């Protein structure tokens, strides 16, 4: 594992030191070095994460909270250690507020299903935004159809920021504001702290989709002031199959369980059941145990780097990307979202030279450059922007300026290929 020191005042992150921990980045595709620029969809997993999972599975694996034998105790300790690490990582006051789920989508569905069905009915409103991922729209549409509550949306302005002019009106009578911390398409970072405060002032709770923030910048839920946050391990150097819901204790305590089954119960009789206490009340069935170990290892890697440095590194790459792509391609490229590197996460969705994003992505692949093409699970946002699809490059700790330059070179080749 690379040796990088934690620093209060972040020093530059040298991604070249990290690359060795990601064997996939040494791969070649079509004879070219892999330039992985799709971390907003899913991040790569470093050796320390893979090693921790393998080592745990080889020596200490058993089901958790079940057996009293030594190995079962070790497995339970490892699983609960991951919960404490997660709580520490996001500044949660109590590890019991950290609920493991399959992913962020399931975490949001859990809130909609459990809190939403209990608390929302005709005359109530949920406020979301036009820049939400489908995972933070569809569960609320399903709930609105079932419960007869209303769904409202905060609009975006021409630069891809939330238009907060009508916020008070939208929040009037709302019981929940659900908002992404950072758009997975535009890269726009929202001031979720201020939005949570506005929601509370209007008597509403605030759920934050933190999929693009927790992996990329310091997040402290106590400071944030939100009531629930959701994120996925696979976007933060961890494995697929495990996500996190954090919620305030009194809210989680008052909510009915989501899935029924083993572990979520304290007692079951033929005529009924009593629920387990937090957090297990929401963790029915055998959970992703090996993946929880991987999540803790991923948190260790990120804490080893320091989240302030992760953020500073991505802002540095933002500056390089915005500068390079705009200088080199001028009017041929349109990078969506706010123009300032500081206002963005490490995401650049762009339209390029009237070439369809699928075609861009196909040619970039020939150069080893991996970018996403499509609507990025945000079709309402694409409609607001008046486009069908974009190509999206996104970067993380293991990317550097050379990767952005490789993207720019491959884009130049793409333009050449499709020009008559």
């Amino acid at each position, binding site marked *: 594992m690379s040796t990088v020191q934690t620093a209060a005042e972040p020093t530059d992150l040298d991604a070249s030191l990290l690359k060795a921990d990601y064997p996939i980045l040494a791969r070649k595709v*079509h004879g070219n070095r892999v330039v992985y620029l799709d971390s907003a969809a899913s991040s790569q997993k470093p050796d320390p994460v893979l090693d921790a999972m393998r080592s745990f599975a080889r020596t200490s694996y058993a089901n958790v909270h079940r057996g009293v034998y030594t190995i079962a105790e070790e497995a339970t300790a490892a699983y609960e250690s991951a919960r404490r690490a997660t709580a520490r990582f996001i500044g949660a006051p109590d590890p019991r507020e950290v609920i493991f789920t399959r992913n962020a989508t399931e975490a949001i569905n859990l809130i909609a299903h459990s809190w939403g069905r209990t608390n929302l009915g005709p005359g109530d409103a949920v406020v979301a935004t036009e820049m939400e991922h489908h995972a933070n729209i569809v569960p609320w549409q399903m709930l609105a159809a079932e419960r007869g509550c209303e769904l409202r949306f905060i609009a975006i302005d021409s630069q891809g920021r939330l238009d907060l002019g009508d916020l008070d009106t939208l929040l009037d009578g709302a019981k929940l504001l659900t908002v992404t911390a950072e758009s997975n398409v535009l890269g726009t970072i929202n001031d979720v702290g201020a939005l949570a405060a506005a929601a509370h002032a209007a008597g509403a709770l605030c759920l934050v989709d933190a999929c693009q923030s927790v992996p990329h910048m310091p997040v402290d839920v106590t400071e944030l002031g939100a009531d629930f946050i959701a994120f996925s391990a696979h976007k933060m150097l961890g494995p697929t199959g495990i996500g996190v819901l954090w919620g305030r204790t009194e809210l989680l305590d008052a909510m009915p369980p989501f899935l029924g089954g083993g572990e979520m119960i304290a007692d079951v009789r033929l005529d009924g059941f009593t629920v387990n206490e937090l957090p297990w009340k929401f963790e029915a069935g055998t959970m992703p145990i090996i993946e929880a170990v991987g999540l803790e290892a991923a948190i260790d890697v990120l804490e080893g780097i320091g989240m302030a440095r992760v953020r500073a590194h991505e802002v540095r790459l933002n500056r390089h990307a915005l500068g390079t792509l705009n200088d080199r391609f001028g009017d041929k490229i349109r990078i969506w979202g706010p123009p300032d590197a500081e206002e963005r996460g490490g995401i650049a969705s762009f339209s390029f030279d009237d070439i*369809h*994003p*699928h*075609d861009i992505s*196909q*040619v970039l692949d*020939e150069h080893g450059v991996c970018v996403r*093409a*499509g*609507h990025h699970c945000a*079709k309402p946002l*694409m409609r607001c922007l008046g*486009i*069908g*699809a974009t190509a999206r490059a996104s970067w993380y700790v293991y990317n550097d300026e050379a990767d952005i330059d490789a993207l720019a070179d491959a884009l130049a*080749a793409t333009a050449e*290929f*499709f020009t*008559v």
Partner: protein
Amino acid sequence: MAGLEDLYKEVILDHYRNPRCRGELSVPPATMAEGFNPLCGDEVTVYCEVADGRLDKVRVAGQGCSISLSSASMMAETIEGRSLEEVHDVIVMFTTLMSVHEASLGDASGLDADGLPADEADGRVDERALGDLVALRGVLRYPRRIKCATLGWTTLTRALAEAVAGE
């Protein structure tokens, strides 16, 4: 970029840059259908005007990638003015071409040495009848793009069904 040129053959790029039968028809007398590719947000609208068992006019509107636009353009050029029976045959041939060994495309084991489908279905595909459309066989190497190539066709099928029902 040898691999790319197999996918983006010159005739495909030509249809992409200069799409044929582009436009709209008034409905009625024409019929129309809209098709969507949820993967990439592509949208295509196909208009058909049928008279006396013949597909008199076809027009294609919408937005998409080079593969979906060129496939729809070649489709329209190939079928316009043909009898409904001939149109049906072309649709079946093209659909067969695009669906051969779909299940095994993931590991490319259904492809011969040239990377083209080695399949008895080839025997049912009359390459002369398909004309330029044969160029789209390169798409089979890129399973994710097959839906791009077939979007115009599935949309045409629906527009035609409506036209035939109204005949």
